[in-house]
């Protein structure tokens, strides 16, 4: 009886030990050499796997980072400069700083400004609606409002606002990954430079039609009059195809263009109220 137990224990011990020895040598032989820095970098990255950097996920970005000779081609917009600094110090490379960006939907055609002229009965996605017709309003450039951007956002940074008919970006949540930019079939969403306190001056319109057509479709359309271009002291505004555009990198947030816009297509966000004199002027110009 006792001899059986001894044999059993002895056999198992021999099998166990020999397996351990084989495994040890196999592990030595087939060892996968992985840069330990990959794990370190992955730790620093946000881990959202959003794809904003152009790689399949954070791990893929980390693998690319350890191989890259410098960091000029690589940037994680979600982690921002902070994360990139850490990565640079892990790799011993020089960090590349970029201005933080934030997405903006360049359409202000809310139900108040654009009247509905038809009823869409099809599948409620922007991509399909845009492949069929110009949309429920007369503006063939503006937001369709079925929320493809909302679906694309992994960071809950877009709210749908059904009462207005167009979504809005929540600046503090937006990480500028660009998923919504790709999702919008009307190319309305743009990543703009992020200023302190989320301040911005933007032309919330993409309508390239002539003034009459544009205004018929939407009360707050850009009509391409060019007043803002003349007003801007920093050459930040350009005009192309009846549509003005403010370059967010050149804009100094002086707000001079806002009151001169006859249709109110230029919007300012998160500024303190203007002084009384300027305010009168603005009201006068929008009343025209």
């Amino acid at each position, binding site marked *: 009886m006792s001899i059986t137990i001894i044999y059993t224990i002895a056999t198992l011990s021999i099998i166990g030990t020999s397996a351990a020895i084989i495994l040890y040598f196999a592990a030595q032989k087939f060892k996968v050499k992985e840069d330990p820095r990959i794990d370190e970098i992955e730790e620093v990255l946000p881990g959202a796997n959003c794809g904003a950097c152009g790689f399949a996920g954070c791990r893929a970005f980390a693998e690319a980072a350890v191989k890259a000779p410098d960091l000029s081609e690589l940037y994680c917009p979600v982690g921002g400069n902070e994360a990139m600094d850490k990565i640079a110090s892990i790799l011993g490379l020089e960090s590349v700083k970029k201005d933080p960006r934030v997405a903006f939907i360049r359409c202000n055609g809310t139900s108040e400004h654009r009247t509905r002229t038809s009823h869409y009965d*099809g599948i409620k996605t922007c991509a399909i609606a845009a492949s069929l017709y110009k949309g429920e309003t007369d503006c*063939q450039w503006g937001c369709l409002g079925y929320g493809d951007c909302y679906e694309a956002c992994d960071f809950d940074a877009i709210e749908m606002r059904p009462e207005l008919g167009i979504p809005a970006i929540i600046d503090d949540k937006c990480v500028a990954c660009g998923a919504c930019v790709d999702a919008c079939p009307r190319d309305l969403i743009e990543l703009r430079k992020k200023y302190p306190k989320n301040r911005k001056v933007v032309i919330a319109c993409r309508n390239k039609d002539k003034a009459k057509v544009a205004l018929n479709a939407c009360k707050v359309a850009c009509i391409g009059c060019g007043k803002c271009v003349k007003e801007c002291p920093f050459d930040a505004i350009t005009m192309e195809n009846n549509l003005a555009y403010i370059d967010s990198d050149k804009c100094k947030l002086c707000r001079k263009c806002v009151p001169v816009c006859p249709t109110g297509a230029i919007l300012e966000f998160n500024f303190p109220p203007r002084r009384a004199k300027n305010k009168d002027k603005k009201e006068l110009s929008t009343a025209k």
Partner: protein
Amino acid sequence: MLKTFSKGGVHPPGNKLSAGDAIEKLKLPESVFIPLAQHIGSPAAPVVKRGDAIKTGQLIAKSSGFVSANIHSSVSGKVKKVDLSLDSSGYLKQGIFIDVDGDDWIEEIDRSEDLIKEISLDRETIIKKIQEAGIVGLGGATFPTHVKLVPPKGMKADVLLINGVECEPYLTSDHRLMLEKADEILIGTRLMMKALKVEKAVVGIENNKSDAIELFKEKTKEFSDISVVALKVKYPQGGEKQLIKAVTGREVPSGALPVAVGALVSNVGTVFAVYEAVQKNKPLFERVITVTGKALADPANYKVRIGTPTSLLIEAAGGLPADTGKVISGGPMMGVALQSIDVPVTKGTSGILIMREQESKREEAANCIRCSRCVDVCPMSLEPYYLKLVSEKQLFDKAEENRISDCIECGSCSFNCPSNIPLLDFIRFGKVTVGQIVRSRKK
């Protein structure tokens, strides 16, 4: 046993309300908007400018590429402007606005009703005349006819099929045209046969138009090379590939042109336009359009000038009914809902269908129950449920692999789905996107 195509197909109710109404001429509109993109291919380039006085039949926009077509004025008057306006595509498109001041035709057009039987012109002149007249496929695809008549090198057609199927419910314009212009259609067929250098032509007509079949059987007695085939009623038999299969038994391979199997299909409306262009020098500026709908007071077939606003047709047919839900350009299966009734009729408009509120409502879609009825009815042997899925998920490489580009957008799958899933809406989106991807790859 009557012939038909073998795969798939559905049987929607015919509803040919206006089959007994002779073609009437619609009064001239006060102004027309003639879009520059009325055909497949590049839009025509305008050759008139604001303020020009023009006559009916005068060239106003020139073909601007290999696949493109001329456009002629459908009225006489003054060019108001060349500008954007809404057309049936749902987007603002360039077009020519003309204020109508009468109906003064250019002198070259022979306006008499006499039938000209002799075909004196040679092949090249016939094709040139067709090209100059701006003729495109009037069955709905609007492919320029002169391009079709010159097959790619190394291919040769041996049979011309004349499409008198009109399988789309409600529409009767081709049916009426066959009854009223049979002689012209047969001479037009001869002209096209000469242009194509084929010895044989077959007119395919569905069995629900027995009067047209009898008439054509009678008339073709003096045309030994043209025969008539009665086809079993089944949608979408009017599709090019389905008609070829039904009449000749040949199957067009995936992605190939019909001429690859030696056949060429042309709609009766196109053939009639060819007759008018070659024998009467008349460019394509008017066509027969069915105005129909169950709630409409007087469904009818009108000969309409291109560019006439849709509202004028509806007015003539008794006005827009109070409970209108949708106004559709085309038939109920393949037509597109119009956004506004000010949209002009174009070369591709075969009918205007007014749907009542109740008829036009979509049933709420339920989940796919994997019954495969969409697969059963697909005339192109596709798997609509799968194509819908990959289009919805935007997996366009999978969609391409599964031949999404072969879809003829007949809508049989959506029609037959017991869960009311709008399959075609998704597939059409996938097809358009795959088409763009394929084109960008070629560049």
